[in-house]
């Protein structure tokens, strides 16, 4: 499976083995760095699409229904444009509930499976992991290229469901049966697209595992691997073992929809005013089990790469060794193991036995222990450090309190008694968005600033970066914190018009504030996009190690040539030897002979 182009130690001459055509070099490349950048750009595009959808939904939620003095003749600019663009779906600029459900389902699916996971795992994992372990490429370069193209096809198939009769799938990203089985045809495309996307990430996971177990350079024992690599290794195992279960589940749902099977259809299910035409006898709860058996490890797939990124950035920018390397790695492994035995805490309301619920309460609260251990280690890493407050560090620092809020708000959801009240409210939405958006996603934005110099040989502008940071973190808090209030007040998720329930009226005002925060957040991404493209040509040119860091990715040229390292790296020590007494600089790279 080894591609003939990927010999190590050939230095800057990356055109050995004949000149590469444009297509081979930038489009159908087998180089892990190009594939990583392809993944990065594609997942940023999907993130933008998902953000666009949710912006539209937040606009709807701010003013969900026409006021008493509403005049259909004078719609105003925004409503007029929306009504013109989306026609029936947004008549008079107010969203039809069906369309709201479609956007909601697609927002979740896109953000998780096509946005954050590919960004954290495939983009940065692909680019950074082989560099950090001193390998010339991934173990299976052609399989790597295939993963990317399968992912892209899966994403396009997913979006193409817009053209199905009745549009996008509308059963939520969780696609709960039996509603998802009786839903319009878009849901069939969801099942097919999910099977394609899962296939892609399975190939990726196999590649990562083999690369990290087999291709470490001389001296790079597992105990010397940077935390980011460890996070990717645990993540790859989670992807490998958890995803196939959903693949099977999606296959069963697909057959329920197209082949007349009844895995998720109970006997004599009433649909509308008739009995649903299927043999019946299946169980809708079965879907929930199969789904959450994937989807809870998936939460840690979203989170672990971000923790790895934050560890790298914090160690570099505090100029001192990471506090508790072994504890962090051990906790990550423990999280990986425990994440397989907590899934049913999403299902306390499904009528499960109390004794079973108790079991899952216990495991769920146990998994918070390693998470808190990691957070504590990262916090203690700051103590006594000479902190450099550059853009990546700001994102890494903000990860700590943001993930803290996300984790702490999760505890009441892990307890069955409190969960009964909070289940399916905006509290849940606020909780997991704190983990994923200002937590994971912000950390991955920090990773973009941190590894950009390695990717393109130039640094991104720090002032624009700081503007981007503040305009990202502050609005995100104004979006997600009010959700906790609304949820505790009893406002349920997935309602196109919450004001139809009178008990939601007192907290409806927050939705207007949240909309303004969404607009600010959108404007705040403009400096980032500008910075990203402007710095390609105009950023400060940097040498191989612009942050004076110790890990191996900084030992090769920026950007690294085909084959990565000019000479084969040899590792002499652990990953975070900063401020070693007696050494001439305050950092001692892993590959420097003492």
């Amino acid at each position: 499976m080894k591609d003939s182009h990927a010999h190590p130690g050939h230095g800057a001459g990356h055109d050995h083995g004949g000149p590469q055509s444009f297509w081979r070099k930038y489009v159908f490349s087998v180089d892990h760095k190009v594939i990583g950048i392809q993944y990065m750009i594609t997942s940023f595009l999907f993130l933008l699409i998902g953000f666009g959808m949710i912006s539209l939904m937040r606009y709807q939620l701010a003013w969900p229904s026409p006021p008493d003095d509403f005049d259909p003749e004078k719609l105003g600019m925004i409503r007029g444009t929306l009504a013109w663009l989306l026609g029936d779906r947004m008549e008079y600029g107010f969203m039809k509930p069906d369309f709201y459900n479609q956007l909601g389902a697609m927002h979740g699916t896109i953000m998780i499976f096509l946005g954050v996971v590919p960004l954290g795992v495939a983009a940065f994992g692909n680019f950074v992991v082989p560099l950090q372990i001193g390998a010339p490429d991934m173990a299976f370069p052609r399989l790597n290229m295939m993963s990317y193209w399968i992912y892209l096809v899966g994403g396009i198939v997913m979006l193409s469901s817009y053209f199905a009769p009745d549009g996008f799938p509308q059963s939520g990203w969780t696609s709960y049966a039996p509603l998802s089985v009786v839903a319009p045809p878009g849901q069939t495309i969801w099942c097919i697209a999910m099977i394609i996307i899962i296939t892609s990430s399975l190939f990726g996971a196999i590649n990562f595992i083999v690369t990290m177990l087999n291709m470490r350079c001389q001296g790079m024992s597992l105990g010397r691997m940077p935390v980011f690599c460890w996070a990717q290794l645990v993540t790859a195992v989670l992807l490998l073992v958890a995803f196939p279960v959903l693949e099977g589940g999606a296959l069963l749902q697909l057959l329920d929809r197209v082949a007349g099977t009844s895995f998720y259809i109970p006997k004599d299910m009433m649909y509308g005013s008739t009995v649903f035409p299927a043999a019946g006898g299946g169980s809708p709860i079965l879907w929930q089990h199969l789904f959450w058996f994937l989807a809870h490890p998936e939460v840690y797939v979203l989170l672990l790469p971000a923790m790895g990124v934050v560890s790298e950035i914090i160690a570099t920018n505090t100029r001192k060794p990471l506090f508790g390397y072994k504890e962090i790695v051990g906790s990550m492994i423990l999280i990986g193991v425990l994440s397989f035995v907590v899934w049913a805490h999403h299902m306390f309301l499904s009528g499960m036995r109390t004794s079973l619920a108790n079991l899952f309460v216990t495991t769920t609260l146990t998994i918070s222990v390693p998470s808190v251990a990691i957070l504590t280690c990262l916090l203690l890493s700051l103590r006594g450090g000479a902190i450099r407050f550059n853009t990546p560090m700001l994102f890494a620092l903000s990860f700590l309190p943001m993930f803290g809020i996300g984790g702490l708000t999760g505890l009441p959801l892990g307890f069955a008694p409190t969960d009964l009240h909070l289940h399916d409210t905006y509290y849940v939405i606020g909780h997991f968005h704190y983990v994923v958006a200002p937590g994971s996603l912000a950390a991955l934005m920090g990773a973009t600033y941190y590894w950009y110099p390695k990717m393109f040989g130039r640094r991104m502008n720090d002032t624009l970066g700081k503007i981007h940071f503040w305009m990202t973190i502050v609005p995100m808090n104004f979006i997600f914190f009010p959700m906790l209030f609304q949820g505790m007040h009893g406002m349920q998720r997935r309602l196109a018009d919450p004001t139809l329930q009178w008990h939601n009226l007192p907290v409806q005002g927050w939705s207007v504030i949240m909309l303004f925060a969404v607009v600010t957040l959108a404007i705040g991404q403009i400096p980032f996009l500008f910075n990203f493209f402007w710095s390609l040509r105009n950023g400060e040119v940097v040498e191989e190690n612009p942050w004076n860091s110790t890990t191996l990715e900084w030992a090769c040229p920026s950007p690294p040539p085909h084959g990565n390292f000019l000479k084969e790296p040899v590792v002499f020590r652990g990953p975070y030897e900063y401020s070693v007494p007696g050494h001439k600089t305050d950092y001692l790279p892993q590959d420097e002979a003492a």
Partner: protein
Amino acid sequence: MSTAAATAAAAHGSQFDTNTGISHAKLGTWAFLASEIMLFGGLISAYVILRSGSSHMAIPPRALMGVPLATFNTFALITSSVTMVLALAAIKENDIPKFARYIGATIGGGCIFLVVKAYEYHHKWEEGITISSNLFGSFYYTLTGLHVLHVTGGILLMLFILITGLRGAYSPENHERVEAAGLYWHFVDLVWVILFPILYLL
């Protein structure tokens, strides 16, 4: 444990100077099989749970299931696993004709399995056990259908191994791909050994 040696080893398959001492191909195959176990494991668990939990899982009479034919099929598949082992042993002795015969026998075993399976499907469909007739039918066709896809993929893989083997791609020093294909084939065999009792006998 240098990467240059690792890369060279992967390219030529002559030695495995990797960190684990196991070739990329073999380690990757094991990882792939781990995910396959979870795929079949999830589906089989779903079957076990609904079979013990649902009151509408009507099990067809054993006569309708055609146990003797399925037993013959099990035998055919297990035999093909044995010939796969012998094929690997033959390539280790650098006996290409013997290797080709045994790989051919493996392909033959897989094909016999598919033909019998096709007959079984036809027969059951005629008898009214269809994918939508009841919950058992749904599981029967889904589980065995997914397995049939895996057998088909395995036969294509074996054809590839046979053709490349006849062109001299494998030798006593370099037979990792044959071994990896063998691992996959044994796995497919093993899945059937689990599916056969839970669908036909219990």
